[in-house]
């Protein structure tokens, strides 16, 4: 659990650094997000006059839900203590509840920025969560369980190359890009309301509240990269519980995070942000891939 919280800002820093280098800039140091969080924590909170108790407590709720979800994904070892508490569907729903409360917080102040962020976020969420659930169905049908430890152990041993696994991978990457608000769906470094989705919802947050929300966003990105790694690239995950197994697991996990971060940075740099109403087409592709994968797996077990 502590590992994911410690690593999340590092992943964000790595992605920003790689994007900067690809743009021929020096870029901020990789540990800059830690410094940003410290700075935000030391600052005073400026709260709108009509902010309610919900506004003040949502950062903690969002952080708690995202942290629990991220801690449930097998990172360096499968079958850890309490990994059976929640399966893939529960992890998707935990992220959904974090988004639910963040969207409510966006509506709380009663400005049009919050409304734009919340309404666009719920539109994206409608398509992304359905695509994610269908992808979860495909993966569960391939691996025979929705329990993530079982899934990664199955994929390590007996998966082979399968068409439906490839479709599920593409769909999950599309959903991950949409849910984390990366280009082409949303620009994480913008402050123009025309291009905001996530930033518009958290516009009124400052100080320690904003620190919690930024850390939760970093955790969510780490969760998705870990999820893709654990399901589709599960080699190296420790299953036996030995110290050497754990060490190998941690090293391979760090390697996968680095690879995932660099891949995301290259993807973001090479593509432009979409118009808002092109996003449903983008997510619709993921939805269709998930549905097709599920359908193929229902009809034939070998695909």
């Amino acid at each position, binding site marked *: 659990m502590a590992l994911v919280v410690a690593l999340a800002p590092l992943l964000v820093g790595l992605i920003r650094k790689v994007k900067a280098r690809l743009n021929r800039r020096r870029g901020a140091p990789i540990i800059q997000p830690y410094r940003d969080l410290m700075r935000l924590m030391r600052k005073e909170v400026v709260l709108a006059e*009509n902010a309610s108790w919900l506004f003040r407590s949502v950062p903690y709720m969002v952080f708690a839900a995202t942290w629990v979800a991220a801690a449930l994904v097998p990172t360096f070892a499968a079958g850890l203590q*309490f990994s059976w508490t929640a399966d893939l*569907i529960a992890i998707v729903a935990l992220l959904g509840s974090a988004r639910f409360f963040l969207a409510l917080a966006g509506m709380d102040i009663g400005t049009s920025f919050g409304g*734009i962020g919340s309404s666009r976020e719920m539109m994206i969420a*409608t398509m992304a*969560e359905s695509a994610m659930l269908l992808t979860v*169905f495909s993966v569960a049908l391939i691996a025979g*369980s929705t329990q993530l430890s079982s899934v990664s152990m199955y994929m390590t041993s007996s998966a082979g190359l399968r068409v439906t696994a490839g479709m599920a991978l593409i769909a999950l990457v599309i959903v991950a890009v949409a849910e984390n608000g990366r280009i082409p769906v949303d620009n994480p470094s913008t402050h123009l309301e025309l291009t905001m989705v996530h930033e518009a919802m958290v*516009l009124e947050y400052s100080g320690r509240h904003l620190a919690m929300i930024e850390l939760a966003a970093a955790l969510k990105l780490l969760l998705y990269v870990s999820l893709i790694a654990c399901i589709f690239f599960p080699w190296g995950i420790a299953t036996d519980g030995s110290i050497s197994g754990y060490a190998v697991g941690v090293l391979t996990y760090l390697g996968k995070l680095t690879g995932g971060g660099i891949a995301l940075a290259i993807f973001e740099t090479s593509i432009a942000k979409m118009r808002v109403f092109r996003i449903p087409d983008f997510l619709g592709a993921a939805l269709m891939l998930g549905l097709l994968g599920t359908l193929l797996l229902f009809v034939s077990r070998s695909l």
Partner: protein
Amino acid sequence: MVGIDVAALCVGALFSLGLLAILFANRRLARTYIYSATIVPNAALAMLGVAVLAGVVGPSSTVLPVGLPWIGTHLRLDHLSAFFLIVTGIGGGLTSLFAIGYDRHDSDGSDHGYEAMRVLPFYPAFLGSMVAVVLADDAFTFLVSWEVMSLLSWGLVLARHHAEETRRAAYVYLVMAGFGTMALLLAFGLLTSGDGGYAFDTIRAGVHSPIGAAAILALMTLGAGSKAGLVPLHVWLPLAHPAAPSHVSALMSGVMTKVAIYGFIRVVFDLVGPLDWWASPMIVLLGAGTAVIGILNAVLESDVKKVLAYSTIENVGVIFCALGLALAFRANGMAAHAALAFTAALFHVFNHMAFKTLLFMGAGAVLNATGLRELDGLGGLIHRMPTTSVLVLVGVTAISALPPLNGFASEWLVFQSVLKSPDLPQIALQIMIPAAGGLLALAAALAASAFVRLYGIGFLGRSRSDAALRAEEAHRVSLAAMASLAALCVLAGIFPGVVVDAIAPAVHDMVDSRLPVQTIQPWLTLVPIAEQRSTYNGLLVMLFIAVSGSAAVWTIHRFASHRLRRGPAWDCGFPNADPIAQYGAASFAQPIRRVLGTVLLRVREEVEMPEPGNNAPARLTVRSRDLIWEDVYLRVADTVAIIATRMNSLQFLTIRRYLLLVTLFLVGLLMVLTLWN
């Protein structure tokens, strides 16, 4: 004094309370006494249901000497009836508690004086008739109680009959209820084929051909489905549920739809006997389609109660989808899978009663405080009605299927049963069920959007009208009722294994199998089929969230700054204090309307821009069509009107034509008789 006698006494008590209300309606404090008295039989019925399910009281039946002289009234209390007694008892009892504190301006002004005679006599009798449907053990009692339930609820919908839309809603409701009862009559006619025995025992022993069984299933879907709110028979629900007084809406949405589902389960799973597999795909697809159409309409409506009514349609769709899956599994002999799907359906029935009743009570509290049902007039209520806001937040979180509350537990079980469906051998099912699963996933995602919109615009933000600015908190008795339901939502979410074990006897009666005992699992995890596959632990998820949240709060308070300053909201340099500038109901729904509404609801947006130099305002027109209402119902109504106009000419024939008609008819009848013999 066995269980069924206690139940029958409670039904009698509820009907006599209705009679008492007629006699004493205009006295002082009549409504407080009547509503308080209604709580007692409901609580007794709920406790009786728990006792029967727990095995403390055995199933029992009786024959009362009322009703038709040669049949009597058969009543039976078995495990399935006990479960639905719990649903009606808790829903009815807590709604009566809420009603004590609701709409208390009954002695001044004729606007609220309707309550005395138009609501009070009908209300306890409505509850009594619903319980009678659940307890009925012969066809006659079932149909009479069903019809009495429809008529009494029609009377309640008409309570505020001065409004035109209420009269229209009641008319549509009456027509649909009549249609539903006709379908049920035909279904029971087919069920009691042959010797004409009415008792359910006799019906159970009967054997039906596959076509006959499928016909009974289709008729039951029409009859019970129209009362529950299945598409395309749902058109009365968004009209009638909002038109009724709020506590009645809570009962109709939360309890009466469940009684309709009970009728469906009783006939299709119990009375009709074995059904072939090809009967189930229709139910599954109807359920999934209902879920999506219902919640899509909910996202686009701007009346709070209409949003909740459409959300009821969505949840009924989910329940029917799970029931269809249970039918498919049972027809293929996969009893354990059928138990999973059936448990998911019953669990969702209970959960929906809990959170929908809570949400309608919240809508009632808001209506009472502001006089408004339109979302575009509300806002900022979290400051004016703090306790109501918290309780409605619990309800909204539960209905959006978010862990660790109860909505997620039953949705999780439904998804697990969808994931078991590849084991079904028939290819048609294998193609249809992934589509249904996809539709269910879309419905679940849309539900969260609908309720973010409802809560965000209704309770958060700034008040959009003076009425919302001056809203007062609800009465503490009403708040107690809402708090009980909110606690039920939380407890059922944290301890889903307890609910699943309680439902197990009813599941076993219907599908001959049950889920493994849940309360002995380590840490009270929910383990539907086997350890390896999938588990969910609501208690631990809640504990983890609480621990993480507390750790975050502690860390922040220890290491971060404590300073806080209030300031104006960010306005980008244009200070505009007008609350109309914030997002409204239609603006929040616009992205989803544009993405998903163009096909199903034919949403078209047009902008009329005046040319430059013209000072006229631009106009945005949004047009949507209800395809089901226009293409199905209006067509049927037009056809009936055309036929009626043509047949009207029969009223104006000459005497010779009449005599000719009578002679031809007699000759025809005699020929039929001779041919038959």
